[in-house]
């Protein structure tokens, strides 16, 4: 059973499949930020790509001009000629071929560069998000569903991929095409350009109208998709219960209701989008007809000045007219992709903006060796009085060393005195008047006092929600206390670098998480530079060596998807070996054997006992066999320690512990 509410919230986490939220707070800002990110890594690439796009568009415009000159300058003069001379035309065609080749090369370079830009940006984003994620405090994972976090990593990056690699280049391309084509059109005939622009205006107006309608249905569709997904998730998750209660038909009826309303809005949304294409295409055709008529009038009337127009000019203009329509169409089609991409980017940036776990600790863990010249008394670990300020190691007893001596000490620089002291790592833990709440308003731990001397076994017992796991969460600083002090070897843990603090603590949790990889890899996770011998020694200590060797591939057995093929007990043993290899002086065993039945537990217990020897151990358990022989048992209730003492003392006290204990007994006796 999970101890805290936060854990339960986490367990409620499910895959979110609702797609992007349709509302965007500040699309412009997000867009700029995204662009800044793209440019920061690939400024040169992007410049080259833009230059290539410009070149390719110029080339295609040159091509259209060629078509104009083809008729007017090269074909018309030859009509009716006795011996038509095609050499001029040949020359022109060859030179235009060169232009085309340049254009094609530019297109190729541009698209190739954009592959690097988009994929590179995504790669950097992926790494950055992950890096950020690893740095976030545990509270983030406790308050956000894992499905949502994963969704940023998968769905949002995917939509961004679409946007960066397809929509953006398309947009850029379309924009430049429109501008340059317009310029050419104005050169050819300002009057006709006016006609064209008028039609473009109509097009934009209608597109806006239709897009407005479609986005309304798109939003509705996303909402209904969300509720349908929620229903499917819940029911599929509980499918077995549905079967047991013969609830199938009721489910189907409810599903149909949701499904039909989704169909309604999805149909409408898609119809709007589908209608847009033909409307734009035919408006383009109308524009063509209008220009032809107006142009025709101009050609016959043989106007001068801005009204002058030749047949060839008209032909070219009509081509331009068609090619200005295409990019407008494309932009309107990319619109949805861009909105969705920006929504994804928004969530990505939100994650990147989360405040990472801070660490202001400066006391570090270093290897030391005994100073042979030291003559004083070894006082570093001996403390006369638990309540008094800890003694600082006598200077000179320990020397810091790069060697792997296996002896560790806290390197503590005292700013006030300007001296560095070394305190040997022994695993002495003190909680002094600790208050804590996951949210400031709701204190869940009150005035916790607790002393654990090196090598002692401290048990925390109590009901669900009493705050047992919370205490361990504070010791390794997954959460920070609100009031009071926690000391580790006499040092306030706030002063200790988090990494070093956590290195000195070993944790075995109820839910075992193994990583895909071999068993050897998994054990080595506790100490990356461990030799094979060390891995095996740790496995032996955890009583895991036996079963591992019996597996077909032994230590090289590959564990897939969180260790599915191994039994619960076996997985727990591997987790214990993983902790054993790290050889920490302090252990936290959080319900490590709760989900294992009594017989299997015997096997695990042997591993646990081996591990606990000589270490300060905090045990959270609700099985008496695990708790009984503790040096001190703390009974927690409602975030307070209500009783403390050894098993025998607590039994004598006839308090809560006694009731809990004998409650089970009398229950047994009543049979």
């Amino acid at each position, binding site marked *: *059973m*999970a101890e805290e509410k936060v854990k339960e919230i986490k367990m409620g986490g*499910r*895959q979110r*499949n609702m797609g992007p939220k349709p509302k965007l707070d500040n699309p412009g800002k997000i867009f700029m930020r995204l662009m800044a990110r793209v440019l920061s890594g690939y400024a040169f690439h992007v410049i080259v790509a833009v230059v290539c796009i410009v070149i390719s568009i110029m080339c295609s415009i040159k091509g259209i001009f*060629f078509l104009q000159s083809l008729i007017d300058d090269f*074909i018309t003069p030859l009509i009716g000629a006795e011996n038509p001379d095609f050499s001029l*035309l040949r020359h022109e065609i060859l030179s235009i071929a060169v232009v*085309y080749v340049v*254009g*094609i090369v530019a297109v190729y370079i541009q*698209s190739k560069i*954009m592959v690097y830009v988009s*994929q590179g940006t995504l*790669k950097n984003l*992926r*790494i950055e998000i*992950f890096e950020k*994620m*690893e740095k976030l405090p*545990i509270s983030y994972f406790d308050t956000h569903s*894992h499905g949502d976090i994963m969704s940023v990593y998968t769905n949002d990056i995917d939509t961004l991929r679409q946007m960066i690699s397809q929509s953006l280049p398309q947009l850029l391309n379309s924009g430049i095409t429109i501008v340059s084509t317009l310029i050419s059109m104005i050169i050819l005939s300002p009057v006709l350009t006016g006609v064209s622009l008028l039609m473009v205006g109509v097009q934009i107006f209608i597109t806006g109208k239709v897009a407005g309608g479609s986005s309304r249905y798109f939003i509705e569709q996303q909402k209904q998709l969300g509720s*349908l997904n*929620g229903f499917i998730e*819940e029911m*599929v*998750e509980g499918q*077995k219960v549905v*079967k047991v*209660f*013969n609830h*199938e*038909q*009721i489910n189907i009826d409810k*599903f149909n209701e949701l499904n*039909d309303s989704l169909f309604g809005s999805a*149909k409408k949304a898609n119809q709007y989008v*589908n*209608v847009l294409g*033909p409307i734009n295409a*035919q408006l383009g*055709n109308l524009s063509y*007809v209008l220009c032809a008529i107006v142009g025709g009038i101009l050609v016959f009337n043989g106007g001068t000045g801005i009204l002058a127009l030749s047949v060839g000019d*008209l032909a070219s203009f009509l081509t331009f007219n068609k090619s200005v329509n295409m990019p407008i169409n494309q932009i309107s089609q990319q619109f949805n992709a861009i909105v969705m991409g920006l929504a994804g980017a928004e969530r990505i940036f939100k994650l990147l903006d989360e405040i990472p776990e801070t660490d202001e600790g400066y006391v570090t863990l270093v290897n030391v060796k005994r100073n042979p010249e030291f003559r004083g008394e070894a006082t570093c670990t001996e403390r006369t009085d638990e309540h008094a300020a800890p003694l600082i190691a006598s200077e000179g007893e320990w020397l810091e060393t790069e060697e792997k001596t296996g002896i560790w000490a806290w390197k503590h620089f005292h700013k006030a005195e300007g001296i560095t002291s070394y305190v040997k790592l022994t695993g002495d833990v003190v909680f002094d008047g600790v208050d804590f709440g996951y949210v400031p308003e709701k204190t869940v731990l009150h005035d916790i006092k607790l002393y654990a001397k090196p090598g002692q076994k401290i048990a925390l017992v109590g009901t*669900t929600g009493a705050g047992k796991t919370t205490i361990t969460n504070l010791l390794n600083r997954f959460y920070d206390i609100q009031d009071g002090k926690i000391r580790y070897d006499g040092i306030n843990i706030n002063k200790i670098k988090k990494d070093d603090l*956590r290195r000195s603590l070993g944790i075995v949790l109820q839910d075992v*998480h193994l990583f895909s990889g071999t068993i050897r890899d998994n054990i080595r996770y506790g100490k990356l530079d461990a030799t094979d011998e060390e891995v095996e020694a740790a496995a032996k200590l955890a009583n895991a060596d036996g079963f591992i060797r019996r597996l077909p591939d032994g230590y090289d057995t590959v564990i897939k998807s969180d260790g599915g093929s191994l*039994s619960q007990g076996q997985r727990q043993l591997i987790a214990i070996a993983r902790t054993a290899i790290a050889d920490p002086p302090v252990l936290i065993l959080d319900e490590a054997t709760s989900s*294992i*039945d*009594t*017989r*299997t537990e*015997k096997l695990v217990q042997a591993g646990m006992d081996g591990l606990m020897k000589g270490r300060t151990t905090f045990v959270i358990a*609700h099985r*008496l066999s695990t708790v009984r022989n503790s040096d001190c048992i703390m009974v927690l209730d409602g975030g307070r320690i209500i009783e403390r003492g050894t098993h025998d003392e607590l039994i004598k006290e006839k308090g809560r512990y006694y009731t809990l*204990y004998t409650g*089970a007994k009398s229950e*047994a006796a009543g*049979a």
Partner: protein
Amino acid sequence: MYKKLLSNVKEYKAASIATPVWMIFEVIFEVLIPMCMGSIVDDGVRKSNMQHIYVMGAVMVCLALLGWFSGVMGGIYGAKAATGLARNLRKAMFEKIQTYSFMNIDKFSTAGLVTRLTTDVTNVQNAYQMVLRMCFRAPFSLIFAMIAAFLIKPEIASVYLIAVFILSVVLIFLVRAAMKCFKEVFKKYDDLNAAVQENVSAIRVVKANVREEYETDRLRKAAENIYKLFVKAESKVVINAPLMQVTVYSCILAISWLGAHMIVAEELQTGELMSLLAYCMNILMSLMLMSFIFVMVSMSTASVERIVEVLDEETDIKDPENPVQTVSDGRIAFEKVDFSYDRSGSGIPVLKDVSLSINSGEMIGIIGATGSAKSSLVSLISRLYDVTDGRVKVGGRDVREYSVAALRDQVSVVLQKNVIFSGTILDNLRWGDPDATEEECKRACRLACADEFIERFPDKYETMIEQGGTNVSGGQKQRLCIARALLKKPKILILDDSTSAVDTATDAKIRKAFREEIPGTTKIIIAQRVSSVMDADRIIVLDEGRISGFGTHEELLESNMIYREVYESQTGGNGDFDEKGD
């Protein structure tokens, strides 16, 4: 596979047929329009015939309007057909899933099924719409444009034929190569996401071991690898655009050269040349579109496969012919039962040669190590699974003779991994009996000792339960589930480790209530705690799929080694701390 998929089009068949028809009309108009354009230039502009320009202009406007109408109709029907197919697919899958047996459910993961019902269906919807709207349009557009070009000038049109041939060969080659790359990429991509997922769920382990940097390094390598693969795959795709341009430009140049000669020789008019150039674009664009459709359809293949997999899955537990509708009493008998989760028979047997007989109204405890098949044993009683060999009888009849619904109404199971649903507490309770009065619900809650905490909620029985039951504790959830099962008023009640999060005293109270209030119901209780089963009438001790002992507490203590061992480890001066659930 596609046949199965398309059989779900059903009432959207008309729309599915209308869409391509309208699209073909649109194509016809689209082809006719450039002809008018050519005519405007040739017969109007060149011959200074303003009248002709007006006439052709008017014709063109009409054609454009018709084209617009066809396009819109195609779009409307296309959307209807595609979203309709999606609707039917979701419906068919969901209904199919409702018929699944436990065996079927075990085969699919929850997340997998949800993806199939959502993302995969959306993929198919998009692909189907694309196919309906473009699959006929593109080839028709190509053919019409080709015909039109041939009508104008066969000599020049043949240039297109050559271009189309070369381009399609290259495109097919390219698309296939790119698809192969993409498949590889997406597989690796899935692996990457799996690694991230692993990290998110094991974040405590990562942080406790100070492995943040190590994990980031690992991911960096994986991301670099994905990057390389993506670049490789997309590099193949980006050849498309320049390739297209090479073809278009070559055609334009070739036609210009040929056309110029013909015009000079007065075999061709300038307007016709312009029309030909317009068709050139049409033809090549259609070809491009066709390659795009090909990519899209192949990409959706994986989704189609996953959907059809759900639809093809046949439930292995079905009603017999002339099923028995009533269960006479709560007797249970196992006769030489073998059971394996693997239907092929080669699987490891979970239960071996189990024979036992339970009387109506008895309270039976079951105890045994994890993996000793306690849950498997009881799941055979309400036919959640079928035996591999032997027979399970309820009320004196083989469970396979009953209608499944009737059997499960009378055999109420509280599953180990239980779920309560979003809605009020009353809603949840009424899963057991939709017509239960509030009084009946309250009584069931009293029996399950759930009334005490429900009464303490401000909204009492109207308290909203959140999805996944996140706002009640484990012990509360278990008691709600027991109450829900009780409302069925079953002849047999099975609790599969359903009080593990309930404290011992409450646990005992629930059992006492069972004994006193529903004496006629056969009760089977699986538990880890010896204290939960020791007061049962008889106790089954399971060991690795076999019955190791079956008798009263005293008998077993006397004769059964395993039972004694478990009993002593839990009570001999030890015991079990209760989790006072609330």
